[in-house]
Structures are given as C-alpha cells and as structure tokens.
C-alpha cells in the first residue's frame, strides 16, 4: 500500500498522469482497437476442445435410416399447412400420437404494441404442438428439446419432417435416459416465448397462454432446426441469443465434432472457415466472421428460436441447413444421423453444461477467443475514462494559490458545484424517459395527425424525441441560476465520465459486443469534450458518434459484411425497421437493448452535449 500512503510517490505518479493525460488516452484507445482487431488473428486464438467429460468418451454409432420417409412427412406437412392456412394442429397431433409420443397443445395469443411490418402481424394467435418421448427406464427428471418452427409459406417443411422422423426412430430405442420433447412452435419467437413461459410458470411479458398439460422435467439442452430444402451443402450454427447471451461453448464443440465425424461442412455466420490465416484475405475473412458475430450479439435480439432458452439456463443453439452452389450435397439421412449422434451425446450429460466458456467470440467454428482475452480490449477503453476522471479530480481539488501569510481561504467550492450538476442530470434523464415511453404511448395521436402507419409513427416519434433532445442545452442554461462556471462543467464532466465508465462496464459484462461498440464511439466523445473546443466541428463529430448514428452505420456495415451491400434509401428503410424491431423485442421478449439505450446511454450522451454547449 505504499502508493496509497506515501505522499511523495503519490504526487509523482499523479503529476505524471496529469501531464501525459492526452497522449496516454490516445495510446490506450489505439491499443484497445488494435487488440480487438488482433483477436481474429489465428495464432492469438485457441482451438476449441470438449471440456465436459461426460460428452467426450463414448463412441456412438448413428444408424438413422429414414431420410426419405422424413421428406415425405415434410411434404404432407406442407400440404396440410397450406390447407389449414397456419399450423395443422390436428394432423400434427395425430402423427405424433401414431409415433408413440404423449402429445399436448398450447394456445397463446398476444397483441403487439404496434404492427410488425417485417413479419406482417399485429394480433397474433397460435398453437404450439409438442410431443414427449418418455425415457423408458430412467425417472423423469430431465429433458432435452428438439424444436422446428412452423413458418408460413414453403419454409421449414423438411425440418418438421425430419423432426417427426427422428421422433419415430428415437421411440424404438431403449437407451434414452432423459425425456425428449419434440416441439413445433407457431409464429417462431412468440410461440417459443409462450411455451417457455408456460413450461417454467413465469409470465414476464404479459402474454396470454393456456397452461401446459404435460412436462418432462428440467430441460438440459435444446436444439432448433431450420431446414428448407431436400438436400443441403452445409450446416450453419446460430448462437446469439436474447441480450447477447451465448450457449456454453461445449455445445458448439459438440456440433463441430459431429460435423467432422460425419463429414458435413459446417459454418458459423454463414462463412466457411479458411486455412490461410497468414494471408491478408484469410485474416480479413476471420475478422469479418468475428465482426458479424459481434454485430449480431450487440443487437440483443435472438437470431434463432433457440435464443429464448438461454434465459432459463438451458444451453441451446439453432442449426440451419443451407443449400448453396457447391457440388457436394448432403442428404437428409446424414443430417438425421448427425442429430441422432448429438442427442445421444447430450443424453449422457450428468449435469448441465457448465465446464466450458459462456463468454467467447468465434472468428471461426474451430477457434474461439475467451473472455480473458477480449476483456483487456474493453479495459483499455475504460482506462481512458478513469484517467480523464483522475485529471478532472486533480484540477478540481488543486489547492488555491497561497497568499504570503499562509492564510488560506477555506471555502472550497464543492457544495454549490454538486447542486448545479443535478439540473442537467435530471433533465437528461427525463428526456431519456420521454424517449422510452412516448413513442408507443402517442402512436394513436401521431396516426391521427400525420399520414403514417403505426409502425412508422412509433419510429418517427422516437427519432423526433431524440433530435429534440439536441436542443436542450440552450434551454437548460436559462434555467440554471446564474449560468455555469468553470468549476461547474468540470464537476458535471467528472460525474458524467464516471457514470459512463460504470455504465459501459456493466454493459460489457452482460453483453460484451454492445459494451465494446458503445465504448468505441462514446469514449472519445467523453474524453475530449469541453466547452472550449471548436463548437461546430465537435458538435458534428458528437452527432456522428451518437448512439443513433452508430446504429445507422452498423446497419450499413452489417450489410457489407454479409456481402449484400444496399443503397442509401434501402439502408434508411432498414434502419427504421431495425428501430421498430428493437422496440418490439423489448416489449415481446424482454430484450434490454432499447431501455438501456433510451434510459441510460442517451442521457449520458446528452450530458456531454450539455457540456459542449456550456456557457
């Protein structure tokens, strides 16, 4: 504790930090960004390995034979789906019962706060159908779930067919130790949310559902299948769940191990792994894969039906079959064998998957970066904020110049400073509350007065409130008694910088990608904004780096990464739909990105905007 009690060393260190504050901040920022980009470089990553002993040792021979029958069942399902105009509940119940499962249904209904234009739904009513395969010998305390979504049109018929084929095959085997639940959910995530809430007796999102009549014990793992073609060329694994939560890495390892064993091409983010990591194009390929994962995780939405399981501590992933233009095709029987192998391995689990990492980034399916390697990138950005705070503190508590008597004026101006800080804080947070509550509340009024649809009304109200907040500093300065002082903005900036540091730290712990992206854009703003920098240039830079513009650029960047670049107008429409999807995700599934940005990040940014225009 020499540093904390030895005054000479303290003074030396503090004077060093305040003298070199700006250079150290710039160096830390570059180092943080460089560290993050270096994460995709293959020698800095680790190969994935199976950590759970229970899943490693058994040799499994998969013998699923009935691929063709699965395809036929899929075509029947498609026909009945078209006839019923939705989920063919009776046909599914009858088929599952004939395969020997215990079948139950669940009705659910939900009125969305405003119409969802992407999926064209507003008042949603549906039914989930699920069949439970009881474990022949063991007691019924644990379960595994295999689910396939029932989507309108021609999608996912083969997935449901394979699900039913696997159900029939599994029924004839005697070694299952856990119950297997085969679930076909309607209206993808809404149905899945209703099922999970019914299964776990929770009701966090205000949905109406009928209680579940049958259960299988606590669910250990779940897989969701999406197959829309009779043959595939590769299997894609989707990991990102709600609020950026990821399943245990062991599930990924399991999938990768089985793809290697059976000989199926496997991808993540739709990109196939490359072997030439030392070339520039190989490295950029890995960076693109990793950035796609970061973008998807940061959005906080669930990118497959599996995403909602993660909240209940159930490891889940979505397996998508992709049919592209490669010559080598894999048929349904092989996929069935892969699923059989995976479920037999999961059957051997003694406890929930917990041995491997929960926080990781994947530049490719066989390499990963764990939290211990990627957190320093964020830490370097957070250090900038702490250095700035230290600098401001030292400036604020520097002793006033002494007169020749040695009599010092004891009036330190800390107490008026704290009170004047409160006004901008309260006003910024009230604006944040307005951004959170007004769009949905006033959509009817907006629709009356303007010729827009409800969804557009909500989104445009959000943008309007956001832009209105920019005009605040000119008004709050009139409210402040006697205007601000030099001390005043320093105290405000100290509070704001510490607030941003704590906020970004907590966000990065829960959802690293969101925390990092916010840090990259907000930390330079926070570190260098003062009332004395050139106003127009810094105002422009601040708006470019504000959360809304970051989202706009991310939309374009995401499209570029997926090699589907779009024009500006399409990008703008996509941006508006992203905002509406974010608000819907929050209302329907409890995603935290929208409240975080509206209630915490936006007020913090507004406080810095206030400091820029401090008089």
């Amino acid at each position, binding site marked *: 504790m020499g540093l*904390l*009690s*030895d*005054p*000479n060393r*303290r003074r030396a260190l503090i004077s060093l930090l305040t003298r070199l504050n700006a250079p150290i901040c710039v160096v830390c920022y570059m180092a943080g960004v460089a560290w993050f980009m270096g994460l995709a470089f293959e020698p800095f990553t680790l190969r994935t390995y199976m950590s759970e002993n229970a899943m490693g040792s058994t040799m499994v021979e998969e013998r699923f034979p009935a691929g063709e029958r699965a395809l036929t069942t899929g075509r029947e399902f498609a026909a009945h789906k078209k006839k019923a105009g939705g989920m063919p509940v009776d046909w599914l119940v009858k088929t599952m019962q004939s395969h020997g499962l215990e079948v139950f249904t669940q009705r659910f209904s939900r009125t969305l706060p405003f119409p969802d234009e992407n999926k064209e739904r507003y008042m949603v009513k549906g039914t989930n159908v699920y069949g439970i395969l009881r474990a022949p010998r063991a007691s019924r305390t644990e379960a595994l779930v295999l689910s396939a979504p029932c989507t309108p049109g021609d999608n996912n018929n083969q997935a449901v067919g394979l699900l039913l084929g696997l159900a029939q095959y599994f029924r004839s085997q005697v070694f299952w130790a856990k119950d297997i639940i085969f679930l076909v959910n309607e209206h993808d995530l809404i149905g899945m949310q209703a099922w999970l809430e019914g299964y776990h007796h929770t009701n966090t999102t205000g949905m109406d559902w009928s209680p579940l009549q049958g259960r299988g014990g606590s669910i250990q793992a779940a897989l969701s299948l999406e197959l829309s073609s009779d043959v595939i060329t590769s299997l894609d694994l989707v990991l990102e769940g709600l609020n950026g*939560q990821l399943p245990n890495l062991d599930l990924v390892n399991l999938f990768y191990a089985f793809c290697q064993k059976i000989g199926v091409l496997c991808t993540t983010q739709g990109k196939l792994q490359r072997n030439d990591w030392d070339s520039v194009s190989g490295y950029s390929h890995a960076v693109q894969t990793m950035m796609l994962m970061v973008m998807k995780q940061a959005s906080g939405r669930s990118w497959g039906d599996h995403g909602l399981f*993660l*909240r209940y*501590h159930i490891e889940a992933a979505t397996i998508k079959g992709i049919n592209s233009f490669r010559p080598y095709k894999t048929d349904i029987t092989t996929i069935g064998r892969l699923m059989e192998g995976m479920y037999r391995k999961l059957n051997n689990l003694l406890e*929930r998957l*917990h041995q491997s990492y*929960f*926080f990781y980034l994947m530049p490719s399916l066989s390499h990963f970066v764990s939290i211990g390697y990627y957190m320093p990138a964020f830490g370097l950005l957070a250090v900038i904020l*702490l250095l700035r*705070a*230290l600098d401001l*503190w030292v400036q604020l508590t520097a002793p006033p110049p002494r007169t020749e*008597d*040695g*009599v*010092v004026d*004891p009036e*330190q101006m800390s*107490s008026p400073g704290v009170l004047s800080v409160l006004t901008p804080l309260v006003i910024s947070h009230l604006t944040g509350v307005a951004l959170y509550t007004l769009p949905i509340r006033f959509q009817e009024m907006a629709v009356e007065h303007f010729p827009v649809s409800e969804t557009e009304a909500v989104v445009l109200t959000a943008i309007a409130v956001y832009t209105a907040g920019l005009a605040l500093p000119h008004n709050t300065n009139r409210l402040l008694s006697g205007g601000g002082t030099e001390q005043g903005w320093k105290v405000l900036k100290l509070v704001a910088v*510490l607030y941003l*540091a*704590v*906020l970004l*730290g*907590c966000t990065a*712990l*829960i959802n690293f990608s969101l925390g990092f992206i916010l840090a990259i854009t907000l930390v330079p703003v926070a570190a260098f904004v003062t009332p004395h920098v050139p106003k127009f240039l810094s105002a422009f830079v601040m708006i470019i780096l504000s959360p809304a513009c970051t989202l706009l650029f991310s939309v374009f960047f995401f499209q570029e990464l997926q090699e589907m670049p779009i024009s500006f107008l399409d990008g703008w429409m996509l941006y508006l739909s992203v905002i509406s999807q974010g608000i819907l995700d929050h209302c329907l599934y409890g995603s935290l990105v929208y409240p975080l940005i509206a209630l915490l990040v936006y007020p913090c940014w507004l406080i810095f905007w206030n400091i820029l225009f401090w008089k």
Partner: protein
Amino acid sequence: FDVSQSYKSHLRNCVNSGIRGSYQYSVVVSSPCFSFDCVVSSHSYLLNPFTILSCVAKSTCGLNNAVLSLFILSTVKGNVLLSAIFLSLATYQSIYPLTLCASALLYLMQRQYIPVNFRRASFWWFIVQYAFMYLGSLFVIVCLSFFLLGSWDFLPSVYGFILSVPDLTPNIGLFWYFFAEMFEHFRLFFLCVFQINVFFYTIPLSIKLKEHPVFLIFMQLAVISIFKSYPTVGDIALYMAFLPVWSHLHRFLRNIFLVCCVLLTCSALFPVLWHLWIYAGSANSNFYYAITLLFNVAQILLVSDYFYAFLRREHHLCYGLYLKRKDGSEATLVLK
C-alpha cells in the same frame, strides 16, 4: 440532525479552548458551516440510495438505525439513563452494539469531568452505575420478551443465529463465502475468529481515541457495519450519514476519490453479477464474492482514511499547519 448539531457545538467548544496561533484558522471549523453540515447530514441519510433500498426491501434496519441514533443523541446530550436504555435496546436487537459501551462511557465521563484513571474510585463507581443501568434494562427487556413469548426459545433463535451464522444466503458481508467452503471440523474455530474480529477493535480504538469519544462511536459503528455477520446496506447508510459531520477533515483525506469510485462501481456491479450468477448462469459465486470483497475493502479504506485525517488534524492542531524541518525546508507528514 440533532445528533450532528449537538456534536458540532461540542466540537467548537473543544477547539476554541485549544487554539494556538494563526495557523489554526484554516483548521478550525468555521461557524457558518455548522448548520449547513447538519442539514447535509440529515439529507445524506434520508436521500441515500442505500436507505431507500433498505426501505423498499421493507427491512427492519430503519428501526435499528433509529435506536442507534437515539442512543448517540442521548449520549451526546449527557443523559446517562437514556443512553444506557437505548444502548440496551440496540444490543437487544443485535449483539454488536455492545462495543459502543466503551465509547459511551468515555463520552459521559468526559462530560462529567471524571478522569479516566484506573486508580480513581470515581471512575469505577461511574462504570458500576452505567453497567447497572445498562444490564438492568437489558435484563428487563429480555424478561419482557420471555413473558410475551412464554418460552426462552427466542434466545438461541436471535442471538444464537447472529453468533453461529447458520444461514449462508449470499449478502454483502464476508461470512457467507468462507463458511460455505469450510470443513465442519474448523467451523467453530473460524466462527470464533470472525466474531472476535468485530469486538476486538474496541480496545485499541478506545485507547487511541479516548479523548475523542464521538469519533470513536463513528469508528465503532463503521466497524460493526463492515464486520458483522449479516450486514445490510441500511447499516452502511447509518455511518455514511455521519460523514458530513466530519467535513472539516476533507482536506486531509487522501484516497477519497478512489474510495468513492470503487464504492459506486461495486454498488452498480452487485446486481449485474447477481443476475449473471443466479439467472443467466454464466458466472458463479466467485464473481459475486469478488465484488463483495472489493466493496468491503473500499469501506475499510474509507474508514481508515477518515481515521488518518482525524489524527492528522489533531497533529496539526498541536504542531501547526505548515511543517518545517530544522533547516527550514518543507516537511511532509508520513504515516508509519
């Protein structure tokens, strides 16, 4: 509010009688600060987020804090009987305020001009009086509880629970993690060590701070809130409410920035890591206990910083504000 006001007037009287030279001007508490500090003190309790949190949780911590505040008020006003009664009430609720006996005795003896000398009869006579009042009221309250309940079962359930720590639900204290991972064989030993830790600091603190019993009360309260077996944020709110009373020590504090940052960060990280551990399942108890440790270390640093500032101010009152070595160059004060 009353407590801080009466303490401030007491302090002013003490300091005015000890003024020496013009160096003291900057160190002496100036009058206009008094009433503002008392208002700040009452506001810092009422508006403290920790107090609001403990009210939202409907904890009885508010009642504990009220009884302790009444005890401090009656001690500072010099009322021996009331002080003993409130202290016995506080001890009745949880055993730890027992350590405040020493500080109450020191204050009351100072007020009645009884010298703290083991050889004087008046010293022992006052101790006997106070102990009689304190133990008597404690006995009366315990017997009242017996008559109310009809059996002595409440003694092991209340005091036995506090001392033997059977329930290991995670909280912001230091006990739960240790006792969760400990073997049964060593449990009694570690239990004794942890409980003695709370009571032990009375002796050295009383010896050092025997002329400043109100600061001793503050230190004891802080030590109790940090080291007790089931601390809550309401206990922390109580001793933090007294910090504005010592606002004249602010210029001598060394680590206040670091401590405030760590306390704020830990308070924000507590719910995040709890969520990650219990609900998301991605973290485990180590993450949560790390934050608990950091929080308690920050509290200890805060308390020891105030202690340092207090002692340093006393030193400056005796030896002047700007220290010079024998050859006239400026000296720095180092705590060894």
